[in-house]
């Protein structure tokens, strides 16, 4: 059968163009936010100076050298980590919500953050990698951060692996995956509580500290790994946007459209879990972004994955960067971990959007 005499309707093109504008606006806003975030803090750097430094201008005076150091070694990696982590968590969240057909799905629905926290607890309590430092600003340090990260990452992967095994036995249905994730979350939470109960004060502090997700923890090498993983995941999810649209229309519709639903679901879940695992292992637990950011974007852009996936990626980055900037400023010179601020900033906005309903 063939259809020939159609035209491309103008009103539809206008409607699509509006979505592009939102995304373009988001990119612009993210850039402005990045410059602002780098310029503010204990040492104020004027925005033009930030731009000069970022564009590669060599420092001349001693003051310039200090600024160069602050920007390149402290603020830029932290700001980029916030963007990358926010984008990664948000894109993993939007994929999970589609794959699991569940609006409260997020990277953490599958027990990944709890598994990471348990891994950190194992590392600190059993392998003895935690100790307390006496400054107030950074009260606890973990004296072997790499081992802690690796153990945390291992347990994140373990959680994912268990869910995959359960899914392969019982079929990759969304219900099985969500329920297995809930069960695992509880299991790892109990495990962490068990370790904490037997930990001494120092270890307990280190474990609790680890769970406060903080984008200030990473430096360039870790940032590079995170960026690589998040970038690949975003490309993967964007390339699969039509498959997710199809799954959103119902499994049977998707199958009728030639989509291998089970495989799409399984592979998508593994990728989302990997992204979350990398971010959790490096930064600790940062909730809310992955759950709520996709819903915020839905309210504005709609459920079409072609725009929802890039939109969520972008606004996840914006939300976490904004939260981190606020976390650095709010009780300056002390710096809050961003995980405390994300919910404080995001929840009111989200509730407002819920009350307001969809944008037409």
């Amino acid at each position, binding site marked *: 059968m063939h259809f*020939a005499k159609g035209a491309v309707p103008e009103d*539809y093109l206008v*409607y699509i163009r509006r979505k592009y504008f939102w995304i373009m606006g988001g990119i612009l806003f993210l850039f402005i936010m990045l410059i602002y975030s780098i310029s503010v803090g204990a040492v104020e750097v004027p925005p033009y100076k930030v731009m000069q430094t970022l564009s590669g201008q060599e420092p001349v005076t001693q003051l310039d050298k200090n600024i160069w150091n602050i920007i390149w070694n402290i603020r830029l990696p932290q700001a980029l980590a916030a963007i990358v982590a926010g984008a990664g968590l948000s894109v993993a969240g939007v994929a999970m919500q589609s794959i699991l057909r569940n609006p409260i799905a997020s990277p953490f629905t599958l027990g990944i953050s709890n598994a990471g926290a348990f891994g950190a607890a194992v590392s600190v309590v059993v392998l003895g990698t935690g100790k307390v430092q006496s400054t107030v600003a950074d009260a606890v340090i973990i004296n072997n951060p790499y081992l802690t990260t690796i153990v945390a990452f291992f347990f994140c992967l373990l959680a994912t692996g268990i869910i995959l095994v359960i899914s392969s036995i019982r079929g990759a249905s969304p219900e099985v995956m969500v329920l297995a994730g809930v069960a695992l979350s509880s299991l790892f939470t109990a495990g962490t509580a068990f370790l904490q109960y037997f930990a001494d004060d120092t270890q307990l502090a280190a474990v609790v500290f680890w769970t406060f997700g903080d984008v200030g923890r990473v430096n360039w090498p870790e940032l590079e790994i995170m960026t690589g993983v998040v970038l690949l995941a975003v490309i993967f999810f964007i390339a699969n946007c039509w498959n997710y*649209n*199809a799954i959103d229309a*119902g499994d*049977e*519709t998707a199958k009728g459209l030639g989509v291998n639903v089970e495989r799409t679901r399984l592979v998508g879940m593994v990728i989302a879990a990997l992204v979350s695992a990398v971010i959790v292992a490096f930064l600790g637990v940062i909730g809310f972004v992955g759950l709520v950011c996709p819903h915020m974007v839905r309210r504005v852009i709609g459920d079409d994955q072609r725009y929802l996936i890039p939109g969520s990626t972008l606004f996840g980055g914006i939300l976490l960067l904004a939260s981190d900037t606020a976390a650095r400023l709010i009780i300056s010179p002390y710096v809050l971990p961003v995980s405390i601020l994300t919910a404080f900033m995001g929840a009111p906005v989200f509730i407002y959007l819920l009350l307001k309903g*969809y944008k037409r």
Partner: protein
Amino acid sequence: MILSVEELEFLYRNRKILHEIAFFIEEGEIVAILGPNGVGKTTLLKCLNKILRPKRGAVHLDGNNLFDLGTMEIARLIGYVPQRVETGRLTAFDAVLLGRRPHIKWDVTEKDLQIVDSVFKLLSMEKLRLAYIDEMSGGELQKVAIARSLVQEPKILLLDEPTSSLDMKNQVEILAIIRQIVLEHRIAAVMTMHDLNQALRYADRFIFLKGGRVHAQGGAEVITPKVIEEVYGLPVIIGEIAGMRCVVPGSPEVALAHNL
């Protein structure tokens, strides 16, 4: 012959659901699959486009063996409208555009948009173009689902109870559209149905399933009180109203009393 099914057998957890199913469909034909709830109508439909894999038997589609074709190739040949479709915050246009999925390589092309537009015109639903499907009525949503299967440009349409959730006007409207498209574009449609009267009006041939087997098949002549009672376990009377054959539940005594 556009589709032929031979000796199809389907097992679900070692329980035989369908056995020895054989039939064929010609171009321009609508075939109704009839039978009581749970007899395997939907299962049979899903075996025809490889959503389910039969244990035994063959399905030939336009000369190709269905099981040699990839899922995307099948999706370019067969459109499928399931009983239930999910909604979301999506315009009808985008929801229908999804039907181009089997043809899209990287991104939507101008041609894809034109095809979607022409199907909107064909089903006279231009006004619904930018309506959100999560705000639609059951009838509108069903039209969107059918439009989605049409933009696949299939040779065969599989429809699982296309009218079960619709009011009488929408039922007639949708079946008439399917009838018209099947004839004009020389494709074929297979639909599962519950309403025998609608089947009589719009289908060319009928397949009655009973106990997972084909109990009877053929043209309108197979629809007799005897066959229907055997399949559904319900006595019926078949009469004529305004030149159209109608099936109503009723015992032979009632039929006798009214000279039917």
